[in-house]
């Protein structure tokens, strides 16, 4: 708008933190699931908003409270299985075979997170478009969709922060996000515990030449790729409709 932008976008941010530290913390807080904020996420620029959403959508950073390490463990199981199939070795993890039953549980848990978020967002978007007089949205257009997406993501990832422009203190949001919260919190705990129980019952197999080694850099990249593909493939369409569309309309107007 022709003013001095050397301080960055300061809407919703405090001068003592500045825009850099605010943006940094907004992403850290979504990664480690604390939900504490030092700026208003709703007023962040779209790229910061994308990163905040991705932090919660991946939801597999260990060190994060809630289900961070559990989800990471699920992704490791999936990565072991996939890479085992790719190179033709027996998928083993910690000396125990990974078989169909564990894979089924792991896949259900890994898909539960995107399922809860996307279905929740779809329902709320449907309710909103059917009757816009409910008046939840503080911002029109793509950003309004981001607000609803963020609210559902935040409750599925047990984060607690929000795009707080959303008027969410009404029965629809309280009930729907309540369901998402309970499912998104407890199922990812039950799943890995069940897998651990099944694995513990199995016989320990000593490492042989046929074992896929899980302590190498290659396997690390493989796990990373699995997480990225699951997060990106599941959520990318939703991100395109929300913050990314907002970004392109901001910087490349018609």
């Amino acid at each position, binding site marked *: *708008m*022709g*003013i*001095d*932008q*050397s*301080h*960055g*976008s*300061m*809407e*919703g*941010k*405090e*001068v*003592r*933190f*500045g825009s*850099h*530290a605010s943006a940094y913390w907004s992403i850290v807080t979504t990664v480690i699931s604390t939900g504490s*904020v*030092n*700026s*208003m996420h*709703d*007023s962040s*620029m*779209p790229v910061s908003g994308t990163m905040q959403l991705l932090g919660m959508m991946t939801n597999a950073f260990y060190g994060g409270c809630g289900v961070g390490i559990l989800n990471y463990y699920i992704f490791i199981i999936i990565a072991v299985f996939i890479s085992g199939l790719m190179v033709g070795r027996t998928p083993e993890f910690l000396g125990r075979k990974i078989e169909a039953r564990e894979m089924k549980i792991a896949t259900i848990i890994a898909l539960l997170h995107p399922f809860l978020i996307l279905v929740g967002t779809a329902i709320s978007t449907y309710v909103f478009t059917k009757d816009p007089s409910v008046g939840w949205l*503080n*911002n*029109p*257009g*793509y*950003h309004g969709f*981001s607000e609803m997406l963020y609210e559902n993501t935040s409750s599925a990832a047990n984060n607690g922060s929000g*795009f*707080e*422009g959303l008027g969410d203190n009404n029965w629809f949001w309280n009930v729907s996000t309540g369901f998402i919260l309970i499912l998104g919190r407890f199922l990812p705990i039950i799943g890995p515990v069940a897998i651990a129980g099944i694995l513990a019952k199995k016989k320990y197999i000593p490492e042989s030449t046929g074992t896929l080694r899980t302590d190498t850099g290659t396997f690390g990249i493989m796990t990373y790729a699995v997480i990225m593909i699951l997060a990106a493939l599941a959520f990318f369409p939703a991100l395109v409709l929300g913050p990314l569309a*907002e970004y392109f*309309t*901001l910087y490349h107007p018609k």
Partner: protein
Amino acid sequence: MKTYILPSLKLTGILILICSVFYPLLITVFGWMSPGNGGGEKILRKGSVVGYANIGQKFTEAKYFQGRPSNCDYNAAGSGGSNKAPSNVEYLAIVQARIDTFLIDNPTIHKSEIPSDLVTASGSGLDPNISVQSARIQVSRIAMERGKSEKEINQLIDQLIEKPLLGIFGPEKVNVLKLNLALDEL
């Protein structure tokens, strides 16, 4: 039965002790050690409290430095931000109006000199600080209103610049209330 219930009860008791006795005590001790002994850092003038260092106040008179716009009008009982998105047309109109008002009040300033923090609302609505540039561009107006030289006021700002925390978090800033109090004593 006994093997499960007794350890659970013990664990519950220990956690109650840690979470609801030791942790609050620890936080209280931190509070006592902080400036103002946990009651907030008060700013005094002639022996009476005129404000708190970390809660912003509204200044409307032209002879004072103005703080940032506030979405809650500096009402500490209902603090909050606007939550407006940068793509929101209504929001852009509000910012444009703030820029226009500022240009009318400060006729010597060109639009490209206005720092973004002076025309956007803070997240809390109670931001006590402004950036150094935001203070500098108000100097010529205040110098004219008070009949002081710009040099004097600029020196005052130099004295009150607060460095960023650990040298990395946030820009250099000035506390509006402290600055205005010092201005009155000039």
